[in-house]
């Protein structure tokens, strides 16, 4: 199209529109009024997001929305263009150098965030001690989020939880919980101990401590003693009203009963169990069982945070706050209380479940790790640092400017401030 070329010849005012539009768009973007208006709008949104609506609702209605993120993008573009259109070809001073650095970093920060959003990966990997899961399979994760262009090929090899250490000491402090993990595809795999302030970075993928809990190795035997099935049953921790914790089979929403063996095996016994850790020895304690025959109605499960019918009740010595659902199978049966057996045994002792015997063979820990891949993180964090450096340079420049003025004035007060937008003021 040659609309712009023909416009001067024809003299038609409408033909100038594309250039006029561009000019207007540029004028709109470089306007300091737009930058300040956007700052005020973002500020107002933030205030609403922590007062009128809060928490997850604020995320859903404001901070996680497209329009809010578009506002942030527009703010970054506007302040970048507004600043550089004003500073362009001006004398470079310490103050202006600091401001340039700050505004450049603001734009770089935005670029880093956008890039990260396209390629990031976040997953929750739950492992019991001794367990290994493939990193590149979605099924390995309890939950997964990733950017549009994330390639699962980045998650190579496997991850093993070697051991969970309680009251782990490092750097002169008690880190409470530390996970000894082995990661990667090479032999031997990379081994490391991670704790709350120490993560493992392997091939750009980072592994963070998140949550941990108890897992019971439950063995099902025939009356004659022949072992027929065994599985680790991770327990959920439930915070009680008095602040203590109760560890039981269930999900984050409440305690549940489950069929044992687990599907797809044919269930032989319905089980609900809770664990009271020993205060003397780690990985030891008592297990309380309630069992019933599969196909009959299951006993009612106690509420997650309510009074517990468990013979142990709640106890102190919390390991973790309640983690997310870790896959305990909820029983679909009705709520009428059936005939069943209940009782408690110490770890390692058998429990008579009628036609079968259940033995809590050992206690292990399970952990939930946050697995993250953030390719834009270096740019983001570097931008923050350099942006801050820009602010410091500007601050130092202002101080030096003030001192120089005072010297010029012979020690007197500062002279009249420069008019807005003048060279001196910008510098």
């Amino acid at each position, binding site marked *: 199209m040659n609309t712009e070329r023909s416009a001067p010849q024809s003299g038609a005012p409408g033909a100038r529109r594309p250039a006029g539009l561009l000019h207007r768009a540029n004028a709109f973007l470089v306007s300091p009024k737009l*930058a300040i208006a956007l700052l005020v709008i973002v500020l107002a949104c933030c205030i609403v997001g922590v007062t009128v609506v809060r928490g997850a609702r604020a995320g859903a209605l404001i901070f996680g929305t497209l329009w809010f993120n578009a506002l942030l993008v527009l703010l970054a573009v506007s302040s970048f263009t507004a600043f550089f259109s004003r500073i362009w070809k001006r004398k470079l001073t310490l103050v202006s150098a600091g401001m340039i650095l700050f505004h450049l970093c603001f734009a770089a920060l935005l670029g880093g965030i956008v890039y990260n959003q396209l390629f990031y990966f976040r997953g929750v990997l739950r492992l019991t001690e001794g367990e290994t899961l493939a990193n590149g399979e979605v099924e390995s994760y309890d939950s997964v989020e990733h950017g549009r262009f994330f390639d699962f090929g980045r998650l190579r090899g496997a991850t093993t939880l070697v051991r969970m250490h309680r009251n782990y000491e490092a750097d002169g402090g008690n880190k409470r919980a530390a996970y000894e993990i082995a990661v990667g595809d090479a032999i031997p795999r990379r081994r490391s101990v991670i704790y709350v*302030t120490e993560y493992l970075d392997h091939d750009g993928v980072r592994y963070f401590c998140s949550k941990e809990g108890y897992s019971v190795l439950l063995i099902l035997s025939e009356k004659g003693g022949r072992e027929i099935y065994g599985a680790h049953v991770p327990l959920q921790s439930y915070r009680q009203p008095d602040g203590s914790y109760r560890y039981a089979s269930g999900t984050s929403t409440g305690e549940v009963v489950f069929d044992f063996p687990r599907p797809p095996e044919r269930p032989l016994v319905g089980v609900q169990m809770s664990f009271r850790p020993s205060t003397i020895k780690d990985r030891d304690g008592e297990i309380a069982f309630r069992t019933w025959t599969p196909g009959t109605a299951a006993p009612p499960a106690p509420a997650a945070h309510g009074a517990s019918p468990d013979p142990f009740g709640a106890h102190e010595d919390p390991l973790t706050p309640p983690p997310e659902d870790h896959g305990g199978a909820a029983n679909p049966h009705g709520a009428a209380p059936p005939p069943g057996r209940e009782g408690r045994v110490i770890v390692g002792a058998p429990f008579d479940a009628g036609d079968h015997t259940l033995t809590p063979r050992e206690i292990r820990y399970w952990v939930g790790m946050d697995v993250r891949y953030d390719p834009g993180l270096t740019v983001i964090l570097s931008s923050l640092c350099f942006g801050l450096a820009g602010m410091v340079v500007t601050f130092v420049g202002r101080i030096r400017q003030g001192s120089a003025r005072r010297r010029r004035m012979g020690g007197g007060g*500062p002279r009249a401030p420069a008019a807005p937008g003048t060279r001196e003021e910008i510098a």
Partner: protein
Amino acid sequence: MRTEQVLFWIAVALYGVSTFAYIFGVIARAEKLLAAGLVAAAAGFFPHVASIAVRWVAQGVNPFITISESLTLGVGVSVLLYLLLQLGTDKVRMLGVLVMPIAFVLIGWGGTLRTGPSSQLAPSLQSAWLWVHIVGASTGFSAVFIAAGIGLLFLMKERGQGALYDKLPDPRTLDELSYRFVVGGFTLYGVMIVSGAFWADQVKGIFWNWDPVEVWSLVSWLTYGIYLHLRITFGWRGRRLAIYSLVAMVAMIVSYWGIPFSVETFHQGFRIEH
């Protein structure tokens, strides 16, 4: 009562004396009362610092974690900055009329929230970033607090007449001084936000989570960002900015201590649950 508590409450009492001396000094236009206010503030500062030191020694870990401890530190740094400014010039003695009442109220509030010493630092707080974060937050707050005080002096200078007001620097100097403290506070608050982002990334792998405290920090920071833009880009000066700095300081106090105290947040009690 423990030594630490005795020292703390002596400091509160002296700040109270300083507060009343400043308020009545301004009302009665009595310079001697202002001098008494300054002496009381300086006298209160020593037991204040001593109470922090005694607590630190007693618990073995840094005493800047709980809200009460954070208030104690924030007020301490503000009073220190105020006293240093007084050492530099006696022209802004009236600054105490804003600084000391607020310091008194905040530290008194902190006193009601005091808990016994804790011997262990939560694992998530055992990070070098904690120090950068704390220093940035307390000095940043103190700087904008002083800026607001100078803003108030500007307004008083504009309206008041008499020897007390004549002694104040001219409005332009006050305006410039207030601006410099805002720039310093804005930068230091930036240090707090950036170090917080690094710290959160170290612990959670997320540098920003739109947590209420994070958002309120951003609100405070943006508020001062707008201040700077209004001054630099739009040429605002004097009265309007003086009022703005006073209003912005309220936002700062709310974000610094009000929010962690009132809503469920990642920073609850400055202890990160894990």
